[in-house]
Every structure is written in C-alpha cells, then in structure tokens.
C-alpha cells in the first residue's frame, strides 16, 4: 500500500515541480511559496490548479499516514523511514505551507462557500483543510485478491491504471463541496451536521440516526419547509441534499426537519389505497381498505417490478388557482405517466382530447399548508408544483386544491410515482433492508452497553459471552456495506487485487505476518482530527467504505447502544473466540485477523460522553490505528513508541497548519 502511495506521491511531486515552474513563469502575480496569507488572486485563474493543490495537500497527510502504518509494522525499518520521511517532509514543507494556506483562502473563490449563514439552515463555510476521508485511500485491507497470477505486463498495466484511478479519485475528492446543515428536530432542538455533496438524503438520515439514537423506522424523513410559500415536502431518499439546499437563497427562512411522515412510504405499505381505491369507490364501498400481505406484495410487484412502473390511475376534479388571482377554478384532471392533464371545456376525457397541464421533469411536488388562509383556497388540502429553484411567489408556481385529504394523498403520491418511478420503490427496499438491520441491532441493544464499557479485560469476557448475536449481525452490516460499496465505487473494487499484489513483494513477507497491516484510512482521520476543532469530519463518512472495521458509523446504534458500537467489540475478541467475523472474511488471505488492540490512550474519554462527541469522537481513529498492534499483554512497549510517534506526527502537522 505505502508503495502505491509513494508512487502517487512521486507523480504529484512531479506535478508539483511543474507547477512551481509555472508559478515562476507567471512572474509578477506570483508570490513566493511560503507566504502564509497572501491575496489569493493568483490561484483563481484555474480550477484545476486548485484541485491539485488540495489533493497534494491531502497527499501530504497520506504520505505520513502510510509512513506511520509502516512504522507500526516494523520498528527497525520504521526508524530508517522516519529519517527518510523527515527528509521528504522537509523537502515538501515549503510547498505544503503555501498550498494549505492557499486552500484556506480560496475557500470562497472556489465557489464552495456556502452562502447560508444566518437563519434556517446555517451553513458554515467549509474550510477544513484536509479533504474528508478519501473513499479510495481509506480502503480497508482488500478482500482476498484473485489467486490467478497476472503476467508481468498485465500487472504493470494494472498497477498503472490503479494509480491513475487513485489519482483521479483524489482529484474528485478535492472538489467535494460540503455544507454544515442545521436540522430541526421534533422537540424544537436542532442538530448540526456536515453534509457533503455526494451524500443522499438516505445517508444524511443515517447520520441523524447515529446522532440521535432514535428508533429507526421507515417513516423518518428529511422534510423541507418554505415558510414564505407555505409549502413543504419530503425529501426522497435518493435525492442529493446539497443540491437541493443550494437552491435556497442566502436569507432564506426555509427549514430542514427530521421527523416521521407516514406519507413517505404509504404507497408501499398499503398499495391498494392508491392502485385500487378509485375502483372501490365506484362500487360505493371501501372494500379495498384491507388487503392481505401477499396480495399487497403481488400488487407492488406488478406495479413496480415490470418493464415500466405503473402509475396509479388518479383522476378527478381539482381546484386550480388562477395565475395572480385569489380565485380557484374547478377542472377535471387526470394523472398519466407523462404528466397531469385536464379535460378542456366541452371535451371528453379520452386521451386524444386531453390537454397537458404540467409535466414533471422540472418540478417538485409540495404540500401547501393553510392555503385557505393564504390564498382563500376552497379546502386546506392543497398541493403545489414548482421548479425547485423558485423560492418566491411566482406565476410559475402551480397551486391545486383537492376536496379531501384522501384525494390529496393520492395525488401527491401518484405524482411522486410518476416523477420518480422505480427509484421510489428502490428507496423503499433499501429503507426496508436498513430497517431489518436496525431491528437486529436493537435486539442486541441490551448487550451493547456492556460491550461499550470496553475496558480491555472486561470487554473480552463480555463479548465472548454472546458470540451468536454478534456474529450474524456484523456480517449482515458488512455485506450490506459491501453491496453499497460495489455500487458506489466500482473503481475501488477493481483496484483491490492489484494493491495487494503490489503489497506483497514490497515489504518482506514476515512483515505482513507480524504486523497485520491495518488499513491506512483511520490514520487519515486522525490527522484531520487534529486540525479540526469546530466540526468533526466524521459525518462525511462515505457509506461506500467496505471496511468491516470502519463501518461502525453506518448502522445506527439503536436504543441504548452508545457510541462504541458492536463491530469494534467484535474485533477485540481474541481471535480464537471469533467464529469468523467479517474482518476475517474480507481479509482472510493477506491480512490475518487483527488481534485485540491495546488499551487506546484516548479510551477514557470516549465511552463516557458519546453523542455530542463532535470533539470527542475524533480520538477513535487513533485507537483503531493501534488495533493492529500485538496482543494486549505485550503491548506496552509498542504503545509508548506509538504515542511518541503520534506526538511527533501531531507536532509536525501543527507546524504545517
């Protein structure tokens, strides 16, 4: 692994050299590299340039991290490398300084600056110098590499491709935009969390569950409210949160809520109310209200699993607010997959006579609240269609009013199905499997606190008592995460075998055996930790991490399950007690199971105060850093060395930033 990093590093230092040349050739505008807080104009001319700066900046840390991992692996070798590293670092130092400073300054000019500072959501500018955990570099020990040996050429080609992929990922990473979002809770409290631009509503929900320890259920959702327009809607799980929030204006009163809404997945819980309701009505009795589970499943399968999704047939008279007036006109509307249509005067409701009212491509659907007051609507059951970017009253916002709540619900749900199609069903399926996971977690909740106590000696006894529960459930979470990982970062998957094959020749074989090389990522985070005081970088955890050790922030700790969640416990079991837990599964070939870690130095603070742990959480990564160390008994000597090393590293970083 470190080999790869070094290679990349080399690539970038080449680039760096070139950039230096460039900056020199830019002449007048250029400032000498080490200046700490220059005007930043000179960097504004190029996007690419900035990205490189950032990634280089990140790489610097990474380089050190890799080094660190190496040190852990072999002390004697480590000593040599420190010297080397110091050399290297001293070479890089001037550049680094300039880069990090330029990054800081450029936050604004990059366009990453969030304008949202005051009310509703307050979004702080994200100036955390090191980019968040990198999805690629943070990769845990690769899963068993393919056994078939590659030819030399293939190997080289592969290695090259891998490096490039890695670099590409870095470049992308450097561009990631982050917002700090204030989410309003049911009890009028708020929680702030960082959302990066790749996160979907689903991921943010996961973070919120982690923070709040609410019981997971399908109805929880992110909910946006526009007080000015008196409209609100549920975020679909697949929507990109940053993208939506970017539409809000600087001085917006809009709010983001975390609450339970039955409507979110109502259609999947009782599809008959939407798909069969109208027909039932005609008969004059609501026979369809209840349906057995099998039929429901059948109906859902039929509606959502075919070649195309079936949009429920919804039609009826609605009131439409006329442009610019407070009057409402009654018309007969029909929902089709292609949009909402109405029956023009004197025409029939056959397809050929219908006039198109609106198509869904560019609009979102909202509930209108208290429109009887605001717009003199005939009833309070209103829905609104508007372009997501429109924030003020405008003729381009369409207001419709239904006779009753049932109709409203049907229309809104029907429109969501027409707009999102199969995605909606996929969201539901993911939420379901997530809920299944959660319930398994909560059933284990009773054990967790004990495990959470986690003093090394006690921890062992406790955790070994209940292996049955422990095994099944981390395995699940891991497999789930693996699935996600597969979809999220295909690239990483390709990469894994190569890295490990890369790994093998570089350090001597015994190196591997002795050290149980841990994934470098935790170290990365530990580095972040030191430089960040305001916000934990942790919410930016990307769910795509296939690391079994890394996955604990993802599954929501349920009930009393406090911060140190089960998987780490699981890792701490002595290997002979562990009937193959995920880590072994994923790393069986090259990476033996990490033996129980030594008592982490930061441990004492950790279990005591978990949730508001914005500042407390950071210590965890270093802890895991030490996981790979030898068995607890003989750890002391190593540990001293480790903490020394940590201090040294921190010092160095302190210098840099």
């Amino acid at each position, binding site marked *: 692994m470190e080999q790869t990093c070094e290679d990349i590093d080399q690539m970038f230092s080449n680039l760096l050299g070139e950039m230096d040349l460039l900056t020199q050739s830019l002449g007048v505008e250029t400032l000498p590299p080490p200046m700490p807080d220059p005007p930043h104009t000179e960097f504004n001319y190029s996007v690419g340039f900035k990205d490189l700066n950032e990634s280089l900046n990140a790489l610097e840390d990474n380089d050190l991290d890799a080094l660190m991992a190496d040190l852990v692996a072999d002390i004697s070798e480590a000593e040599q490398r420190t010297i080397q590293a110091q050399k290297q670092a001293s070479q890089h130092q001037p550049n680094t300084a300039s880069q990090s400073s330029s990054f800081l300054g450029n936050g604004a000019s990059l366009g990453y600056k969030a304008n949202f500072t005051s009310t509703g959501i307050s979004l702080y500018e994200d100036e955390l110098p090191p980019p968040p955990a990198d999805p690629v570099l943070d990769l845990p020990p690769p899963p068993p590499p393919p056994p078939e040996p590659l030819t030399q050429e293939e190997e080289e080609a592969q290695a090259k491709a891998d490096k*490039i992929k890695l670099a590409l990922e870095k470049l992308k990473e450097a561009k990631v935009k982050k917002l700090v979002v204030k989410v309003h809770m049911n009890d009028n409290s708020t929680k702030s969390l960082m959302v990066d631009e790749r996160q979907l509503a689903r991921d943010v929900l996961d973070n919120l569950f982690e923070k709040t320890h609410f019981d997971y259920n399908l109805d929880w959702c992110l909910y946006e409210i526009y007080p000015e327009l008196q409209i609100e809607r549920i975020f679909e799980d697949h929507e990109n949160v940053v993208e939506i929030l970017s539409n809000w204006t600087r001085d917006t009163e809009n709010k983001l809520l975390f609450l339970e809404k039955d409507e979110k997945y109502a259609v999947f819980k009782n599809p008959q109310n939407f798909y069969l309701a109208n027909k039932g009505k005609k008969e004059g009795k609501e026979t369809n209200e209840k349906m057995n589970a099998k039929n429901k499943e059948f109906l859902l399968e039929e509606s959502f699993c075919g070649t195309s999704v079936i949009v429920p047939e919804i039609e009826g008279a609605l009131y439409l607010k006329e442009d610019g007036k407070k009057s409402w006109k009654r018309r007969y509307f029909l929902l089709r997959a292609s949009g909402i249509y109405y029956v023009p005067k004197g025409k029939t409701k056959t397809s050929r006579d219908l006039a198109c009212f609106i198509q869904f491509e560019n609009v979102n659907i909202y509930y209108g609240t208290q429109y009887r007051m605001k717009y003199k609507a005939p009833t309070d059951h209103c829905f609104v269609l508007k372009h997501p970017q429109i924030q003020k009253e405008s003729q381009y916002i369409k207001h419709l009013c239904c006779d009753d709540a049932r109709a409203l619900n049907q229309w809104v749900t029907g429109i969501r199905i027409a707009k999102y199609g199969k995605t909606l069903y996929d969201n539901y399926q993911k939420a379901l499997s997530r809920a299944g996971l959660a319930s398994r977690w909560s059933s284990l909740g009773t054990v967790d606190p004990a495990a959470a106590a986690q003093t090394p000696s006690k921890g062992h006894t406790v955790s070994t008592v209940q292996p049955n529960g422990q095994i099944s459930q981390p395995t699940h979470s891991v497999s789930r995460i693996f699935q996600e990982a597969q979809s999220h970062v295909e690239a990483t998957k390709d990469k894994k075998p190569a890295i490990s094959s890369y790994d093998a020749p570089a350090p001597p074989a015994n190196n591997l055996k002795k050290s149980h090389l841990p994934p470098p990522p935790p170290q990365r985070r530990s580095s972040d930790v030191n430089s960040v005081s305001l916000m934990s970088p942790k919410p930016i955890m990307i769910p795509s991490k296939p690391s079994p050790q890394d996955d604990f922030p993802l599954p929501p700790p349920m009930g009393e399950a406090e911060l140190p969640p089960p998987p780490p416990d699981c890792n701490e079991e002595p290997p002979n007690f562990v009937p193959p837990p995920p880590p072994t599964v994923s790393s069986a070939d090259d990476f033996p199971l990490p033996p129980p870690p030594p008592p982490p130095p930061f441990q004492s603070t950790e279990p005591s105060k978990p949730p508001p742990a914005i500042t407390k959480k950071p210590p965890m990564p270093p802890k895991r850093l030490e996981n790979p160390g030898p068995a607890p008994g003989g750890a002391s000597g190593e540990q001293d060395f480790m903490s020394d090393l940590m201090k040294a590293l921190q010092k160095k970083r302190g210098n840099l930033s």
Partner: protein
Amino acid sequence: MATWELQVFVGDQEAQEESVTLRVSGESHIGGVILKIVEEIKRKQDWSDHALWWEQKKMWLLQTHWTLDKYGILADARLHFGPQHRPVTLRLPNRRALRLRASFSQPLFRTVAAICRVLSIRHPEELSLLRAPDKKEKKKKDKEPEEEVFDLTKVVLAAGVAPAQFRGMPAHFSDSPETEACYRMLSLPQPPPDPAQLLRLPRPGSLADKTHLHSRWLDSSRCLMQQGVKPEDTLWLRFKYYSFFDLDPKADPVRLTQLYEQARWDLLLEEIDCTEEEMMVFAALQYHINKLALSGEQDDAAGGSGLDDLDAALNNLEVKLAGSASTDMLDSLTAIPELKDHLRIFRPRKLTLKGYRQYWVVFKETTLSYYKTQEEAPGDPIQQLHLKGCEVVPDVNVSGQKFCIKLLVPSPEGMSELYLRCQDEQQYAQWMAGCRLASKGRTMADSSYQSEVQGILAFLSLQRTGGGGGTGPANPQGPEASGEVLNPHGLVAPRFQRKLKAKQLTPRILEAHQNVAQLSLSEAKLRFIQAWQSLPDFGISYFIVRFKGSRRDEVLGIANNRLIRIDLAVGDVVKTWRFSNMRQWNVNWDIRQVAIEFDEHINVAFSCVSAGCRVLHEYIGGYIFLSTRERARGEDLDEDLFLQLTGGHEAF
C-alpha cells in the same frame, strides 16, 4: 385376419397429390403403413418429416405404434401422407413478410415456440399467430409494389441445442447474405412508413373496431392443419400477451426490436390512444432510433457507458499526467470553451412592444451574460443567467431563416424568459448545444458537445427538406438518406397529421428529442416500449360480450392483471376485476359462456359476441399462465400447464 384396401394421398400440395393404394388390416401399425407407402412410391427422398393426416377427423396420426383399429380407421378414411412442416408466410410485428417452415402437426403453442427459436425471440409464450385479414387483397394488388419477402424456409435448427452466436448473430443466420439480411431486418428497426400510405391503412374508428383483431387469433392447443391453415398462407405473428418477461437488450435484440415495432404500429395506427405530448415523445424516439439504425451504429448495448467514460477519463488523465509540456497540462485542465458573439435578445415582458435588440453575449461555463457592447464586456453585464436547470426550447423556422432559442431560466423569484436569436444554422447549433449542456449542468468542455452540435445541424437539415416527403423511405441506405428524406408525418398517428403541419410538428419533435438524444439504440427502443406501457390503455385486448342478465352488448377488456367491463358506446370503465382476486373460471362451450368467480362470491358470466369464447378463455388462461412465470424462473416452458390453462375440453 381381414385385410382391406386403404387409399392414401401422397404429397404436400393437394393439387399434386398422387394416390397409393395399400392392403392393410386393422392390426396394422401406423408405422408399418407408412413404411408400405414409402415402398410403394419407390422414390428416394427424406420422408422423416412426413406423417399421415386423417382428413375427415382432422387429425394427424402421429402415434406410429398405434394400430389402425385403435385410431378407428376404416376403408373410407381419407388419409394424406405429407410433410408436417410446411412453408407459411409470416407477417412480422414490423410488417415485413418472412417465409419459413412451420409445423402443421404440433399444437400451435409449440409451433410458435419453434418459429420464435428460428427468429431468436425468447419467451415465445407471449406471441401467437393470427389469420391475416382477407378483405385487403383486392386493392393491394394494383397499388403495392412487389415487396421483398425474406426466406428462411431452408433453415433447419438442431433440436434441443441453444443456437450459438456467430458474428454477432445466431449462427443459423450467418450462412448466406440473404439470411444475414433477414437477421438485420429482424433486429433493426424499420424506417418510418410513408405518411400517405399510413393514411390508407385501416385504423380502428371505435372501440368496436378494436375488437375485430382479436377474432382472428388461432387456437394454441390445436395445430395449424386442424385450423384450416394451408401451406403458403399468410399468418400474422404478434405479441399477444402484454406481459413482457425479463426484457433484456443484450439477450433479446430481435424480441426488443419486434416489440418496438409492434408498439410503433399500435400507435401509428391508433390502436392505442395517447396525448399530443406523448405522441411527440414517441415521434422523437422513433426519429432517434431511426437515425441510429441508419447511421449503422452497432447496437453493442454494452451498458458499460459509465465504464467507458471512466476509461476515457483515465486515458485523458494519463495523457495529462504523462504530458511533459507543462503548459499543455495547464491548458487542458483549465480551458473551458466559451462562446462570444453578437446576438439579438428579446425579453418578453408585459406591456412591452420592444422586439429583439442586439447585445454582446458571452457564454461561459454554464452562465450566459450579455452586455450592451463588446467594449463593456469586462464590466458588469446587463444580466447574467445561470442556465443550470433551465428549460431550453427551440424556436426555429428554417425556411423563414428564424433560429431562436427560448430559455426559461429558473431563479428564486420565478422563471425568466429570454429569446436568443441566431443568424444562421451554424451559430444556432453551437449556442443551442451549449445551452442544452448547461441546462444539465455541463459545460461546453463536455465530450458530448460536438455530437450535440452535429445532432442539431442534422435535425435542421431534416427540417429543410422535411414536409416535402414525396420520396418515401424506400432506400434507407446511403448517407444522405440518413434523415433528410424523413417526413415527420411518418412518425405520428394520422390524426396528428391532420392536426399539425409538418412545419409545426418538426419543432415539437425536436423539442422532445433533446431529452432522448443521448440514448443508445437499445435504450431508445426500451424507452419507447416503456412509454407505450405507461399509457393508461396499454395492453388491453377488447372483446364484445354480453353479460348475463344484460340485454345489450358491452365491451370486455382483458389486460395482464385484470378484466375491465367497458361501456360500448361511451367507452367508460364500468367495473374492474383483478385476476389476483379470481377464484376460478369455467367455460360452458355449449352456450359459449364464460363464468368467473371472484373472491367474496362475486360471480360474473358473459357470452362472447365478437370472438370465439375460446379466444377469450385462452386470453384469461394465458395471462394466468404468464403470471406464474415470475416464480418459476427459468427458460423452460411449462407447456402442459399452458395448455391446461388455455385449452378447453374440445382440445382433448
């Protein structure tokens, strides 16, 4: 043992039959009789496909170990000794004709399966054969030019083996240029029909008309011979059950194409109604599909476009990283193309009579800014518009040399409307392509920019020539044919031909086209099929029936999941019953009545007016059969189950 003389007619055509007289007994086995016939004829040929057909009883004597007694054959039986497989002409869903040999002795279900195997269409249970309508013959003869009939009669498939792939097609198609052409016909979409011809084709004028088609379905449990089909007859092959299982662009090139064709003709001939907006999308998809098919884009349907992108990006990056000249690197990383020009802009406002005014317009990344003059450009623009998420609508009249782009740009305050007027096609194409990319949040540095520009130019050229439409799409080959002779009227149902002129139609199709322009051929076909399936009236087969206790004719619609009772005159849905609630159904063959029992003791009974009650019965049973596929999974057909569900007692 008593023996008697048995006369047998030999030959596959009635006219050329020779008669042979044999001496047989009641104990003679069919196999022995056949042997005797062959010996008698003394002609060397492959008799393996021949079998005996008993004319009076309308049955094949396929059990060679049965005796004549067991079959009940006496001296007066008229027996024909002929091949079981005989040539028929199939009218495919794409309206092309194809000759091939079909089994006349097996149940139609199996015959169709064999045909589909030859055509490499998976899931043959969804298709069936109809008799060709007979009335059209008279007029057709003088008007229609000789049409090409593809011939697959010589193709014989080894039984039981899945056809291997060879040169991108099933191996049996790669034998000769003719069969290769046939495969192309099967797997590539056909050019749009001549609008004039489209107008001549019969279209259903009412719901009652739509029921006619379904009276022609052949019976799945009986063989072609039994149903009076003669060799060289024309039969229609169609998707009968609108429940398409596991549609996979990679595995189903022919199936997907034929399904697309059936959907297209359904729409063009107004078998299914859609709204104007939907028709525009269908037209745009057809145009797109056509263009891709003609440009010879091989439909490799790799599905890996994402991966390709990544590879491309990696290659780029590799070049960048390897590039020694630092300026190159910088350029390639930073250069985002811009457009700058004098354009005329019009902002519609209330109570304004101002027309277009000339401005200096700069289009950079996804932002459009305009200035009074070029000199003021470095300063503050009059207005700046971020085009991400905006609507881009073409407003073009080629003959009038009007090239306008209408932009509907969202902002927190609402939408701002802006018209850009370009001088010529070239300028228009560049700016239009830029606007379209920007609306999706991409810049002109995007790799698709050039192809977008080309696409717009191509469409403009279509408009230049479109509307004349005299030539027709007779010869689709040649580069200049790739769209220029296209008449938008060939893409829409005739009622839109009457409603909209080609001039009005083209811009609307163009507008719809921009949403689908990026699709690959198979994606576009799939999208077309999906849009077709999303129509509310999709997949309903109509029959005129008379419900028990009712005195007037009504319409029964059968869809893949439900039965619908429809008022014949008005077309309103009266009642819907879902198959999932169905307990059982019975057919009283004597009074031609179907009785169905649903949950909660709901009983429905009706007699069939427009079609045989066999057809209806088979439709219901067929859908029930298709719904069982989901669980069974796998390619193997449970033929027995199908015949059980669809066959009546007559069949056995």
